[in-house]
């Protein structure tokens, strides 16, 4: 297939009617054959050939898969550049085979989100792009389709790390409590305002400490050996008022964690 017509055949309307011959087509990236992904559900018959790994994968799979040629590109930011083969043609038109390698450099670049220097093997072209984008994080987290093709498996994993770190930082900024002052004028962290034994109360502890109070009594009233993991699994996303109701049911003394 003519590469310029690829999108036309796929039914994607081109922005311009004249096809761009200058654009990179990432042939080696998009033409990789990927193994078909099988979705397994709980209770499915386990195929005999299926190996269950000891640990879950740490990273999402790169949508275009790994490169089979020029495997160095799987281990760095090569921007979709690969080894190129051609001829050296002399004055007398003698052809001698030669190759062109990307201009690969080793660098340590600062990542704002990861808060550390990241050692990288990257091409000079990608380094220039990173400078233009204004940093490694911006380069990695851009959403354009061409950027995803450029990243390669290594860049994809780095992107995951950066996005996760950003998510974590954002979550850390959101406080799940409000700072109020009690009767004596001391500052207290109030996590939840509700009712306990029919009286309005403010909780000064979070879910973790509240569940630690609830666990021993529930364990006492549950036949068998109730483990904390199983106990916690059911209540980790339960609303606070439900937890308070349960504590009320077991008549747990909460005097040290509530303020009236």
């Amino acid at each position, binding site marked *: 297939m003519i590469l310029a017509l690829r999108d036309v055949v796929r039914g994607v309307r081109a922005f311009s009617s004249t096809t761009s011959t200058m654009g990179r087509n990432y042939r080696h990236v998009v033409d990789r054959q990927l193994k078909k992904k099988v979705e*397994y559900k709980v209770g499915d018959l*386990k195929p005999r050939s299926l190996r269950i790994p000891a640990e879950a994968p740490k990273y999402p799979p790169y949508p275009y898969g790994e490169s089979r040629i020029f495997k160095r590109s799987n281990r760095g930011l090569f921007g979709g550049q690969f080894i190129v083969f051609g001829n050296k043609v002399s004055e007398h038109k003698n052809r001698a085979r030669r190759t062109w390698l990307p201009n690969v450099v080793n660098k340590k670049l600062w990542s704002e989100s990861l808060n550390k220097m990241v050692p990288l093997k990257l091409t000079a072209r990608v380094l220039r792009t990173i400078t233009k984008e204004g940093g490694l994080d911006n380069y990695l987290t851009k959403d354009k389709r061409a950027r995803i093709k450029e990243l390669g498996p290594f860049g994809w994993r780095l992107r995951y790390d950066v996005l996760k770190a*950003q998510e974590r930082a954002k979550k850390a900024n959101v406080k799940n409590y409000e700072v109020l002052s009690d009767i004596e004028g001391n500052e207290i962290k109030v996590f939840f305002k509700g009712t306990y034994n029919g009286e309005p109360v403010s909780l000064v502890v979070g879910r973790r400490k509240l569940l630690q109070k609830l666990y021993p009594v529930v364990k006492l009233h549950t036949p068998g050996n109730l483990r904390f993991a199983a106990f916690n699994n059911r209540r980790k996303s339960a609303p606070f008022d439900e937890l308070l109701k349960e504590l009320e049911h077991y008549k747990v003394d909460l005097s040290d964690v509530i303020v009236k």
Partner: protein
Amino acid sequence: MSKRYTGVLERLPQHFRDFFMRRADQSQIPAFRSQGKYIPEEKRYTRPEQWKVLEGDRVMFVKGPNKGKIGKVLGLQPFTNSIYTDIAETEPLAVPRQLWQEDQNEYLIDYPKTVSPDDVRVVATLVREDGTEYDIAAEDVIFKGKYFDEDYKKMMPIRRVKYHEHIIIPWPRPDPAEDCVFSTPPEVAEERSHVENSILQFEQPADFTIQSLRDPIMKRPYKWDKQVLKKGDITKLTAPGIPYSETKKAMFEERRQIRESQITEMSAEVMEFIGSRVAEHLNNVTDPNFKQYVDKVSGQYRKQKLARREKEKQLLDLQIKEAEKRNKRVTRASAQ
């Protein structure tokens, strides 16, 4: 030969296998050497059809120094696919003292060489009409049909001369097996000790259940047992998803706002306004064809159409009843 090679001997190529077997043979004293070629287990003869001759058969040699002579098969040597015969060549063999036979008094014995069953022909004795007997040597034998042999206690193929299939060469009679103290008489072995009373009812008690015949405290699950995927397996097989970038999240938020800002239900005022404008337009139309068209697409038209059809049907029914009455009157008049 090291353990490394012997363990996988069956998997080696033929020439390697021969080489190692030769090496192993050379390292043995002559009494222990295997005569002839070693035959792997899967290629050894097991059935009488493969052997073509059995112990006790008379055979004629067609190869070697005994060519043309008639001898008797003394036994079969399965690990070389060859037979012992009574007039076979012998070769001197030094036997260690531990392996001496009862009446042996020297190290050197004459050990018979074995012959391939392909190098002999089965000899059968036939009877002429006048009662005289004569021998034939079958060039080749084929097997057609089976019968139960009482002496062999199993189904045996019927051995026939090739191209003369009416000539049957019977199998030689084996030496009768002698019973020992541990033998079970055939009457006892064949005695029926259990009889089912009904094919509908099982004799085992109703509460008798058995999950598996396998060892219940087996450490590993049996490998052919079907296994289902558990929640933990699915967790280990599932890779995490990639989080959305800030740009994507902003885009989703923008789209959500756009979706919310869009009006999906028409307010009463707008409906009133549009209705009044349409009514005004339709009231000003003077073209009769257009009026007909508007009538047709309006909701009233279908009701009117159904009412008209009902009316037409009633009329038709009435006409039919009247015609029937008229016919009855005519037939009655003609009968009188």
